[in-house]
């Protein structure tokens, strides 16, 4: 799927939709709508990955990014803010500054890309198929010099600790904890200071 007119068409299609939806994510004032737009962006990205010929990664993107992360974000939105209320407009100053910085970043990055000499892929290199997930799996679990077994294990630890950390941070305090918190004074309660 990485060559030919169809892929070209799909590229421009997905590119246009992802840019439009991304703008929707950052400009929309309704959080829920932004989240839906994000799903669209991620879906287009998965499509782009598919255009490149990486079916496995595209599948993971859909499964984890859309199915996991964005769904979790939707939960958070529903738990925390009322989806129907508008988010307040940022100040004009902030918007101008943000746009300037983002534009500058884009310019610099693009000029860096344009000035870099990337090796030009040959036709046969582009013809290599990447459709099998088995090589990725082998690479991930290889303990050879070019294997990723250690980062893989570290990532698993990271996920576990993130899970535990998330529970610890977000859980409701039990009544006896509340008392002990009060005993410790206000310093442990930034919320009380803020109120």
């Amino acid at each position, binding site marked *: 799927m990485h060559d030919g007119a169809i892929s070209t068409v799909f590229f421009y299609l997905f590119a246009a939709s992802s840019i439009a939806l991304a703008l929707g994510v950052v400009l929309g004032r309704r959080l829920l709508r932004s989240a839906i737009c994000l799903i669209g962006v991620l879906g287009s990205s998965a499509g782009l990955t598919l255009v490149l010929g990486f079916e496995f990664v595209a599948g993971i993107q859909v499964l984890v990014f859309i199915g996991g992360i964005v769904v979790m974000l939707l939960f958070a939105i529903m738990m925390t803010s009322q989806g129907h209320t508008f988010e307040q407009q940022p100040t004009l100053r*902030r918007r101008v*500054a*943000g746009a300037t*910085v983002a534009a*500058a*970043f884009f310019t*610099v990055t693009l*000029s*860096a890309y344009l*000035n870099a000499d990337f090796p030009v892929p040959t036709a046969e290199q582009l013809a290599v198929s990447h459709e099998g997930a088995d090589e990725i799996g082998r690479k991930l679990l290889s303990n050879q010099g070019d294997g990723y077994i250690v980062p893989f294990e570290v990532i698993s630890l990271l996920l576990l600790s993130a899970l535990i950390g998330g529970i610890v941070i977000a859980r409701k305090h039990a009544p006896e904890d509340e008392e002990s918190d009060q005993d410790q004074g206000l310093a442990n309660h930034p919320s009380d200071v803020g109120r």
Partner: protein
Amino acid sequence: MTGFIFENAWLIPAMPLIAILLIAVLARGENRGLAGMIGSAAIGVAFLMTCWLGVSYLRLADQGAAAVTWSIEWLRYQDHLVVSLGTLIDPISLLLLVVVTSVSLLVHVYSLGYMAGDEGFSRYYVFLSLFTFSMLGLVLAPNLVQMYVFWELVGVSSFLLIGFYYTLPEAIAASKKAFIVTRFADLFFLAGILVLGFYVHQLVVAGGSAASVVGAATTQTQALDFATINADSVLLALKGQTGIFGTDLLTVAMLLVFVGAAGKSAMFPLHVWLPDAMAGPTPVSALIHAATMVVAGVYLVARMFPGFAASEDALRVVAAVGSFTCLFAAVIACTQTDIKRVLAFSTLSQIGYMMLALGVASAEHPAGFGASMFHLYTHAFFKALLFLGAGSVIHAVGSNEVTEMGGLRKKMPWTHATFLTATLAIAGVPPLAGFFSKDEILGAAWDGHHALIFGVGVFVASLTAFYMFRLYILTFLGGCRSAEAERAHESPPVMTIPLVVLGVMSLCGGWIGVSHFVLPGVELHAHLAVMGISVAAAAVGIGAAFWMYGGQTNRAETIARSLGGVYRLVKHKFYIDEIYLFLTHMIFRFIAAPAAWFDRHVVDGAMNLSAAVVHRFAAGMNVFQTGQVQTYGIWMINGTILVMVFLWLVQR
């Protein structure tokens, strides 16, 4: 020199150190009485070990042998410039060891009675043990740096003990005075050490594989060791180099060292601290300011005697300063009425005597050297005895002023008998200890054809007899002059037993041939003529004392009045203290005060200015600290972009 005690001579100074730790751990609060026991026991063990060392030395070693028997490397700067910690055993260090440990033991025991019930009882014993440790380390030092370290340590312990009664303003002032004056002198000593270390090291290293200059220089030859410095070839080479003010380098170095020695030994004009140091407890005066620490200067000069002898000018200075101090202090002692001050000036005078003896010695005629050591040894005993006796009297009467004493002969028989022994000894009455050592000094001066110094010596001998008997008569004879003196009674045995032991030493100490021990192989001969002169001088002094103070006459006051201004001048110690005070005020007004102004306004001002600038700047920057993480983020990305652009531009 082999044997357990030689190789482990470090155990001797280690004993008081252990005592300090034990006192610190065990003798606290209610148990503070234990401190005296621990301190005395430790120093007792040290004394026994010293005796063992002495006996082993006499039996096993050659006569006059000197050896570093134990040594550990401490600081290595370069080859031949290594500071080590060790024990040097030779006749004079052995002599000092015996003096220090025995007098210290007796003072420790005596203090059990004298200091009983004092609030700072364990503190007192800690300081006393610290002093003993430092003094023993000083005596055993085989190199200049170790000696300097312990030299400062004895200075500190002296400071602590003078200011022992730290609630009394005069004790605090006296301790500060002693510390500052000796520290000032030690600065010169340090300079001397640096000069010697630098040049001797150069000689050892550069001397053509060291052999030509230092003789048999080995890798063990250390520039700061006394053995190296005192080597004839080194001294000759140093004498060959030019110093400052048209003198040779050796003289410069030796004079610098001598200033340090003079400070510690309270030689004129650095003597001002010693009379004031009597503000400390009396046993301390006996141990530190009479018997041991103040003779450290004499010991230092004796240690480096080959250097002084090779540089004849330096030795001449030693002789001049010694004789002058000797005379000067004796004159002042005749007018003082504070019993401890009389003894302090007497100490000054006697140390001057020792310096004088060193000054009249030379490489060819070293008799004065032996005599000086001999006098150091006998003086330690009878002067410690005098102080301890004075302490006993003060303990009984509760005052230092002889005008409030009198008639104590019957009330304090033991104190009286021992004090009289010591007085006779210091006056030079045969056959007591002081007679022999003083006679040797005068004999050495006579032999060296130093007529003036001999004359001074004889005159001072007479003066010594006079002021000591004046003190004795005023204290013990006649009638009681105060109610306290009426009520006085003998001190407890723990105080009188050390007095008796010291009394025996003052009586018999002179019969030991210390000079032969210190100077083996040198022929020493007695002069009957000199003996006669010295005995006659003593007799004149004693007679004068009895004539002036013996009866119920007021001849003393008549004479004092007839002398008028001269008497007042002497009574006020020639106004030396006042001169120093004036000089100090001058320094304060014209150096210290402008320096303080400069510090306060210019240095501090610059600091304050820079602080104010930073503060203003920070207040300005504060505007950016909005607490908005997004703002920070924008600035961060801005910075990143700028860096990228900059790097890109630079790269092109």
